[in-house]
Each structure stands twice: as C-alpha cells, then as structure tokens.
C-alpha cells in the first residue's frame, strides 16, 4: 500500500507537466494532463460564475423598489438574458463534469488520465472560444441579446439585438459538452483499474457516466435548433416564425427536448458528489449502492420523455399535457430514491460534520425544496397558474443553485486539499455554510410567495403590492453575494498560505485518497489493483489518514 507521507513522493503535477516547460501559462494552456485541464476549467468557470452572480445582484438592485431604480427596461432584459446564458451554458452545464469530473474521474478509476487527453484539451479550448464569442456578442451592433436564455421564436427572430452570435456561441459550447461526454464514456469503459468492475466503481463515476450519455445524445438536438434559428434570422427561411410560414411551437419542442435532459446534466454529477461525501464523513458504506447507481440511469433515460412539461400553457393539445404530466411525476421517483438512500447512509454511521458534510446537508434541504415544488409544477392544474411566474424562478434557483451550485462548493471543500495540497480554514467554511443557507432562503423563498400571488417572471417592473417581498429578496442577494466573496477569500487565502494538507484529511477510501496531495503527473506511484468495494472503510486500518 502506498503511504504518501512516508516516501518522498514523486514530483506533483504542478512541478511536472506534459509540455516541455512545466511552468508558465503555456504549460497550462497546452497541457493534456486531466488535472491541469480540470483546474483551468475551475478558474474560467469561477470567473463566469462571479460575473453571472454580479448580474443577478444588479437585477435585484433594480427590483428593490417599483419603478426605475438603477437601469431601464432594455438593460434589465439584457441582464436577465446574460445572467441566464452565463449561469446555464458557462457555469452549471459544464460545472461539475468539467472541473471535478476531469480532475477526479481518472483518479477514482485508478487511471493515469482520461481516454483521450488531447481531445480533452480540445474540449477546453472549444469552451474557451464559445465563452469568448459570448463576450464578443455584447459589443455587436444592436446591443446585447434580450431574448431570455430560452431564445423563444418569433421574438428571437425579430428583435434587433445581436442574437445570432450568442446563439452560435451556444452551438460551439455544445461541442465542448459532447466531446467531454464522449471522453468520459470511453474512459469509464476502458480505463478502470484491474479489479474495478462497474459495481466497484465509486458512485461519482456512475453519475458522470449517466450524464455523459445525455451530453452525447441530447446536445446535438439543441445544436441543430440553434442553427435553424440563425438561418431563419439571416435568410428569412420560415421554420419557426409563422409570418414566414413556420411554427413557433416546434421551436419550443426542439428546444426543450435538449434543455430538459440538460437539467439532468446539471444535477446528476452533483448527486454523484453527494454519494461520495456522505459515506466518507459517516465512515460507513453507502446504503443502497445499486439503487443509487440505477436511479442515475433511470433519470437519464426517462428524462428524455418529459420535455413538454415546460409547455403546459403553450397551446399544445390537452391530451399531450395530460401524458407529459404523468411522465413528469414518474421521473420524480428516482430522485426521491436517492435522497432516501443518502439519509439512510447516515444511519449507524460515525458522523463527523466537517464543511463538505455540512454543505451536503444544506444541499439535501435546498434540493428537496426545489424537487418538491417541482411536484407543484408537474401538476397541469397548478402549473397553469404558476407557470412563467416567480414560483418557477424560485423553483429553478432552488434546484440549480441550491442543488448543483451548493454541491460545487461541497465538492470544492471536499477535494480542495487533494487539488492544492493545502487546507482551508475549517471554522470559516462552517460559518459560510450557515450564512449561505440563510441568504439563500431570504433571497429566493419570497419568490415562491410572489409567484403564487401572480408576479410574472422576466418583469422589469411590478405592481406596488409586491414591494415588500421584492425588497426582502434584494436584501437576501446582498447577504448571498457577501457569502460568495467570503467563500472565495477563504479558499484563495488557503492556496496562498494555507497549512499543508494531509494526503487523506477526511479518512476517505476511494482511490484519490491513496495518492499524494497534490497527485503526481501520472496520478499514482504504483500500479493500482482493486479488490474492495468502493466504500469499504475496513481498509482504513491499512491506509494512511489524518485521524483527528
């Protein structure tokens, strides 16, 4: 057994790269090392996350009081569109797979890298180009896009703002997603260490696997749809715009056939991270390994069949509405199964609620609210009232931000010592979790109430009766932004001058904890063979870990 502290381990991946020179910017931009690529995604995605969050805070400032506060209607419409585009296409869809999937999938499989390291680098470059196109589009003639991130036709065909370029950017970003998915599928099939059959694979791998299939199968649909809109705008070909003989509902179907499965691209990897963190801090095996793994696949496949629940008021036939409502309720079940199994994993464990665990607890709470309010939206009767109101805005923030966003932080707190070899301030991280959950609910819970009272979404201005709750939500956005900055500072200071971290600070047993922190270029200084199930904590006796 390797025991990283005893040997003076080989050079870390920071000291030894895949390029000729191992330091400097080019040694990163041209590196095919999955760990460096993961870190590049981390830096880029963090930057976009903060821009997106800043836009959110600006919108909240505008909504602080009725009437014009800090901007005009056009600016507001542009902001919610950019906020949505950045959060969806640049933050939450790539998010966990690109950062943590890249960094930890090979490590957890006992592999030296992903199956196609160069393709992996290409995916990063495509992501970068796509994001540069988004930024460029802000300066194009007509001004920044104002269609909402859903690009609904005919508005998106008729508006004079710059629509084609950001659409093309989304098209480009799609390729990054497809190629990353493809890479992970092959990696999981071909690169598992000897002895690691599919059912000895950590559950994070399962979730990445299910996600990757969605990325590969669903993304082309939105790519084609986007191209059709560009063609329609540029050449007046009537595909979606009825003034030219097209059908706007067709656009909505095509858009959601991708974008509904895309919400599982967002949430499945987060669920995988949860399935890693709970066993480690409960120091016992996962409850219901097979149901959790299979529910990921179930979500991935049933998830294709529910897209039209975004269209319950669109004038689609009543029969389709009934069928899609039923299917929507069915797809809720596997998510429930996961939550119950996670809680059961805490039963008779030995629980040490360190920051990653506290963040997972916040996740379970916030994600449950998001999921359960999804049941309201799934009902054709209730949705007819709350569709396209703040109720929906609140719901998807609870799921995406409270769900996946929270887990991005949990994953960072969990794997940070492995990625950087440093430890952050634990107490600070705990306090941040507390503030986060308060801020989150102050920011978004009022939106459920406003939504039910009839406050439509994408509204620059509102009726005076909403003023108090809007103000409350804005106060929440300030606490939230301060908390986000505080999280960032803690981690940033830890990188700069944190204490050196133990190779296995939490007592984890999956393979990433059995190498040095940070890992060497080829991940392990020995050949890996696996003869345990993934969460067998009896191994801890033989492993090196920080016992306090």
């Amino acid at each position: 057994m390797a025991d990283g502290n005893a040997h003076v381990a080989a050079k870390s991946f920071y000291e030894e790269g895949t390029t000729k020179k191992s330091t400097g910017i080019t040694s990163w931009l041209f590196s095919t090392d999955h760990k460096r690529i993961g870190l590049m995604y981390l830096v880029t995605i963090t930057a976009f996350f903060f821009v997106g969050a800043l836009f959110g805070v600006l919108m909240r400032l505008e909504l602080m009081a009725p009437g014009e506060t800090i901007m005009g209607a056009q600016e507001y419409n542009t902001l919610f569109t950019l906020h949505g585009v950045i959060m969806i296409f640049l933050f939450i869809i790539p998010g966990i797979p690109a950062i943590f999937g890249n960094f930890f999938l090979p490590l957890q499989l006992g592999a030296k890298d992903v199956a196609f390291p160069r393709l992996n680098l290409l995916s990063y470059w495509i992501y970068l180009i796509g994001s540069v196109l988004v930024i460029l589009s802000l300066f194009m003639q007509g001004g920044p896009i104002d269609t909402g991130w859903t690009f609904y036709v005919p508005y998106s065909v008729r508006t004079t703002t710059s629509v084609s370029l950001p659409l093309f950017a989304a098209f480009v970003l799609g390729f990054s997603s497809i190629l990353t998915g493809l890479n992970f599928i092959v990696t999981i099939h071909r690169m598992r260490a000897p002895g690691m059959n599919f059912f000895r694979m950590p559950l994070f791998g399962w979730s990445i696997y299910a996600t990757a299939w969605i990325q590969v199968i669903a993304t082309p649909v939105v790519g084609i749809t986007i191209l059709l809109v560009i063609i329609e705008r540029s050449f007046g070909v009537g595909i979606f715009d009825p003034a030219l003989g097209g059908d706007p509902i067709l656009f909505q179907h095509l858009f959601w056939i991708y974008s509904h499965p895309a919400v599982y691209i967002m949430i499945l990897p987060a669920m995988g991270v949860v399935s890693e963190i709970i066993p480690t801090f409960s120091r016992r095996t996962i409850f219901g390994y097979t149901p959790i793994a299979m529910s990921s696949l179930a979500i991935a496949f049933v998830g294709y069949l529910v897209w039209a629940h975004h269209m319950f008021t669109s004038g689609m036939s009543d029969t389709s509405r009934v069928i899609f409502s039923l299917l929507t309720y069915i797809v809720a079940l596997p998510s429930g199964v996961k939550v119950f199994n996670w809680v059961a994993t805490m039963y008779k464990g030995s629980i040490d609620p360190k920051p990653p665990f506290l963040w997972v607890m916040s996740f379970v709470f916030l994600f449950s609210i998001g999921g359960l309010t999804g049941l309201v939206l799934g009902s054709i009767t209730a949705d007819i009232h709350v569709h396209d109101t703040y109720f929906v805005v609140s719901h998807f923030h609870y799921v995406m931000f409270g769900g996946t966003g929270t887990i991005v932080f949990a994953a960072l707190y969990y794997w940070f010592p492995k990625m950087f070899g440093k430890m952050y301030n634990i107490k600070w991280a705990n306090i941040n979790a507390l503030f986060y959950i308060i801020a989150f609910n102050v920011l978004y819970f009022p939106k459920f109430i406003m939504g039910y009272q009839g406050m439509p979404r994408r509204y620059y201005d509102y009726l005076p009766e909403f003023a108090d709750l809007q103000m409350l939500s804005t106060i929440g956005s300030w606490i939230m932004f301060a908390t986000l900055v505080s999280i960032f500072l803690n981690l940033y200071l830890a990188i700069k001058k944190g204490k050196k971290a133990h190779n296995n600070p939490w007592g984890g047993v999956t393979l990433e904890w059995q190498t040095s922190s940070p890992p060497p270029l080829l991940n392990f200084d020995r050949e890996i063979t696996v003869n345990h199930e993934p969460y067998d904590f009896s191994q801890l006796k033989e492993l090196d870990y920080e016992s306090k």
Partner: protein
Amino acid sequence: MLGFFTGYAPASTTETVDNVMLFIVAISVVLLIGVTATMIFFVFKYHRKKGHKPVDIHGNLLLEVIWIGIPTILVLAMFYYGYLGFSQIRYIPEDAFQINVTARMWSWDFNYPNGKKTDSLYIPVGKPIKLIMESADVNHSLFIPAFRIKEDVIAGRTTYLSFAAQVEGRYDIACAEYCGLKHSMMYTAVIVMDEKNFEKWYNDSEDISETQEEVAMAKFEIPSINLLQEKGCMTCHTIDGSEKLAPSFKGIVGTKRIVLTDGVEREVIVDEEYIRRSILYPNADIVKGFAFGMMPTQTYNLNEEELDKVVESIMSIN
C-alpha cells in the same frame, strides 16, 4: 391572491387550483420536514464524538420497495387531482360567451360579437366566458392571477381560455410570456359586472369604458389613426408632441432632424421616403437622443396596404 386571503374566490378556477396546490404542498411539507429532521437527528445521534462503531449496512430491499412504492402512490394521486382540475378548467360550456382577443407588443384588444372593441375585458358575473386568442406579433400569455389561469397567445395560432367569474370587481390581467421591452407593462384588467350593468354597457353605443382613449382618437378625424393604435405604434409614439420613448408623430413632415446613420450624425428632412424607411428599417437612422434597437422592424406587422395607410396617417397628423 384575493381568494387566498379573503376567503372569496373570484372565479371557480381559483378554488380548483388552490385545492390542488394545497394538496401537493401539504404532502411536500411533510416529506421535507421528515427528511430534514431525520438527517439532523442522525447527525446528533451518530456523531463521531460519541464513539459509536459504524455499522456497514449495504441496503434493504424492503425499505427500497417502501420508498419507491409510497411516493409512487402519492405522485399518482397528485397527477390524478391535477388531471381532474385540468378537465374542469379546460371544459367549455356550450353557451359560453365568446370574446376574441388580440395580443400585441404591448397591449390587448378585446373584440365582442357585436363589434364592440375595448382594451380591457368587460364580462358579466357568473356567465361562462370563452376567450379566443391570437397574437399580432410575438408570443404572449394571458394571465389572470386572481382566477389562477393563463394560456399562451401564440403567433400564427389560435388558443383559448375559458372561465366564469364569481365575484364582481376589477382583476389584473398580465402578460406572462416574455415579449420584449415593455413586457412588464402589458397589464390590463378584467372588469366583472353584474348582469344588468353589463347589458347596459354592452348595448351602449356611446362608450363609457376605458375605450375612451381610442374613441377620442377617432374623434380627431385622422384617417386610420386607429390603425396606428391597432398596430401598437401608439404604445411608444404619441400624436400630441410629447416624446417619452420615441419621437412624436405630430407635424413631423418637412421638419429637420439629426439622425445617426451607422453611428455617424447627419441631418435629414422628414418626407414620405424617410417615414417609410423608418418603419421598415427602424435602426437605419436613429433620431438623436433615442435608443438604438428600441423599435422592431414592422415588416411582419404590416402588409403593403396597411403600410401605405400608416404612412398616410402619420403624414396627416398636425
């Protein structure tokens, strides 16, 4: 919201939706508290400080069956109630009073069978109503929060919405599908009157309604000024010389103005040619002081004949 807080339900659909909502939320709250409380309880009970030895439990088939089975029953019940409510909401009685609705950026027109035309919706209490809805431009959605119903108004399609109001009063109508600049200002109202008052209003040739604005316009005796109203030009432009969002139409022919063409300032004299171009290519010349990209092209909004009429009426406003 009225029904929720006062106990009066403005429409039958209000109760239908509120009941389904309450049913789902009640179950959800129980589940949420159950999961959260159990989780927190476990953290205290099995805290590492207490020194328990962890027990590896790999799973339990019975439990899995239970927590797939019970939620399945619950969600099927939710689905079923939703289905029942939906059938009620979408049911249209034979004798429903039909009103045609046209939505446009950013106003509503209601056209009654007898030719009456308004920008608010006037209905008699208790009578089933069927709205037959079309859009003049992009997608909109007619949303009556107090009645808990909405239906999108889709370009190139006809959709419908049906309801019966139970309590007299004035309730907001909002646009719930994003439709551009003034989406959030696309409010109007449904005015529910008792049968007698409605009859009086409906058969009154002299208008007592909010249509007054339009009536006044007609009284200016400007040919087809109503077309300007109908096509939505008047949401931004005015005919009285005041300029808020866009230049006024009042007496513009022959005036000089500074415009930005491809970012370069130049002076033009307003003539028919200029007006025509400004309608079809609004952003080719931007009058100094107004925002680029504010006005969408009207190519899809006007056919050739209408365009001629619009140009003619703009030129005749003095």
